[in-house]
């Protein structure tokens, strides 16, 4: 947390809910009276493409992008994507990964293969690694779309923002009628230490 700015890099694959999660994180920072910025690129038909969202908050934020080697936390919605961006993490940073694997169609060409032993590689590189099966927790809660709030719950332990504000923002921003279940999902994630 250099110069009082916290950098959270949220990564995943198009359609996983990365953007809503980063929006919620920014809102929590905003509610706490902090300056915040986020940046991502949406262009070409990115279904199944790589998605990264840079979220920064603190007293005063200039660049909307996190520099390589300066992310305090990487939150990976997909495990190979977490590996792809691992060099963005600062020494001593935290990585939180959903163990879900999304295998892209390019593997059928035989020219590329999905990386092996991703968990081990990440754990070896990053002492502060948390790997969870958010999909299984979401299934248990009865809605696989809860993956992103569960992950936000895990993330909330790695950064210093009040629980009550998180719950407020989730209540306000979750899709209509899903406020309660999303708050529950967040707390499930937050219970994972």
């Amino acid at each position, binding site marked *: 947390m250099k110069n009082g700015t916290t950098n959270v890099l949220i990564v995943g*694959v198009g359609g996983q809910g990365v953007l809503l999660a980063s*929006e919620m994180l*920014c*809102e929590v920072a*905003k509610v706490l009276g902090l*300056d*915040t*910025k*986020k*940046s*991502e*690129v*949406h*262009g*070409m*038909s*990115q*279904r*199944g*493409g*790589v998605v990264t969202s840079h979220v920064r908050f603190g007293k005063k*934020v*200039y*660049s*909307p*992008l996190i*520099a*390589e*080697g*300066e992310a305090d936390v990487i939150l990976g919605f997909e495990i*190979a*994507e977490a*590996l*792809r961006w*691992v*060099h963005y*993490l*600062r*020494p001593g940073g935290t990585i939180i990964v959903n163990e879900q694997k999304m*295998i*892209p*169609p*390019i*593997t*059928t*060409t035989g*020219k*590329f*293969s*999905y*990386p092996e032993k991703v968990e081990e*590689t990440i754990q070896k590189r990053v002492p502060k690694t948390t790997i969870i099966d958010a999909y299984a927790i979401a299934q248990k809660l009865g809605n696989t779309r809860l993956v992103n709030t569960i992950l936000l719950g895990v993330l909330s332990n790695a950064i210093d923002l009040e629980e009550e504000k998180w719950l407020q923002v989730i209540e306000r921003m979750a899709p209509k009628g899903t406020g309660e279940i999303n708050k529950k999902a967040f707390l499930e994630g937050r219970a994972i230490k």
Partner: protein
Amino acid sequence: MEMLLSGNEAVARGMYEHGGEFASAYPGTPSTEILQTIARFFKADVYAEWSINEKVALEAAVGASYGGARSLAAMKHVGVNVAADPLMTLSYTGVGAGLILVSADDPSLHSSQNEQDNRCYGKFASIPVLEPANSQESLDMMKDAFEMSEKFDTPVLFRMTTRISHSKGLVKIGERRVNDHAGFEKNIAKYVMVPSNASVRHKIVIERLEALKAFAETTPLNKVEMGDRTIGIITGSVAYQYAKEVMPGASFLKLGLGYPLPMKKITDFARQVERLFVVEELEPFYEEQILAAGIPCEGKKWFSNFMELNVERVREGFIAAGVLPKSAAPAKQAEEKVLPRPPVLCPGCPHRGVSMALKKIGVIVTGDIGCYTLSALPPLETVDTCLCMGASISHAFGIEKAKKTKKKAVAMIGDSTFLHSGITALANVVYNRGTQLTIIVDNRITAMTGGQDHPGTSKTLMGEKTNAVDLEAICRAVGVEHVRKIDPYDQEETIKILKEEVDRPAASVVITTRPCMLFPSKIKTERIFHVVLEKCTACGACFRIGCPAISAAEEKNEKGRPKALIDPELCTGCSLCFQVCSSEAIEEVEN
């Protein structure tokens, strides 16, 4: 009140707050959300439309401005090339009510065919260029832009970049204020650009530029932030944020008005610092003008004109220039090799059937701007050219006229792109006796930019019903005698008809009939397909259609090649894989 807004949303909000009444655009990344935001939140007060192309968008906004409405036209950087014709002379006529041209540039070509720097248009057309550096400025500078436009009787180029347009930040919002403007006032000397009037106006443009230069010296849009005087940095747009992060203690001259430059202010700033740097993305736009004014500065030597800047690149520049120690950069950590995830045609995309058929027939495919260009990527690799909007038709025509290539060239163009700038090209083919096949892949939406309506969809941006352009009738009207429709999901029929039309010694058009699977709303299907692994021989035929729903199964054949697997969540039941499977291993199931 504070809101978290993207630069594009802030532009929309600013336009609304500062009395905007008319907005037009052709969708293009990274500019698209400006008009979407206006239509979504402010349509009670601001008229908003998708125009047929950027030239028309600007011309319509010019008309609205002449007619007394504060107006805005928005487009991506290459869209301004299309609108350059009206723009260059619009500089001469000036405006009625305030008029803003928003150009959203795309350094690093995240979603574009080039990374041109549109600040150059400001200098080219002798009009002011505003460069917001975050979302708050994107809103606030709308006020400055309208006021400058009216005060100096000039259109204002409002230059965004992808990082400004698509980054979100906190923005203080305000109330809407409306200025009263008269309607169109007859003024032939100002508005009729025949040579005798235009020459008089050109002189006014030259005088106006001098007045703008004087304004640039005093406006708070150009801000000096004195710090350590050993290093002075002149910068603007998002480059300011990067430079500020890397060199927080240095002295800054931040340019909000990027053209014309405040040369006196720059001279004064240069005198106060020991070493002067210019940090700007893409072209050495400030740097060349500053050097031409005889002020020594360092810019592109350290900060490349290739791709967007960021904190790392600005820091590397200052390290290379000897300003920062090598230790200023965190130790570089090794990158892990992870397979790419290139964008692909969606499951059930109707373009896939056309590309598969064209591959089978074996022709040159001149492509255009749209999702179908993704057929240039493996495994389909059918599209052979992509230059700009509407070029596919004239490319095929030119290849034929060159007479050097045995293979026939076929043009592939989307419905929105055809309406944007394909119609004139098709008329040219007929007029000049071309014999090519043009395929209009009509998915009834502007898909690549996220599903916008266009003149063929019978719905406006503001949600009103309207008459739709009849593509078939247009083709016939420009003189194409052979126009046929095909279902691209039917491979046998598609191949047969396309072959007939490729071989026909006359200009022809084939129009596809399947809509986009995603927009305006996701299409739900009753059937999907699955692979019977016992029957699958792992021949790979279904892999080669490039469908994201099909992946390699863990089960392999005797040669160790993987069998196929269909993801039931992604399959849309288009049946193209079923049609290419020769071992009857793909079967229909109820969804």
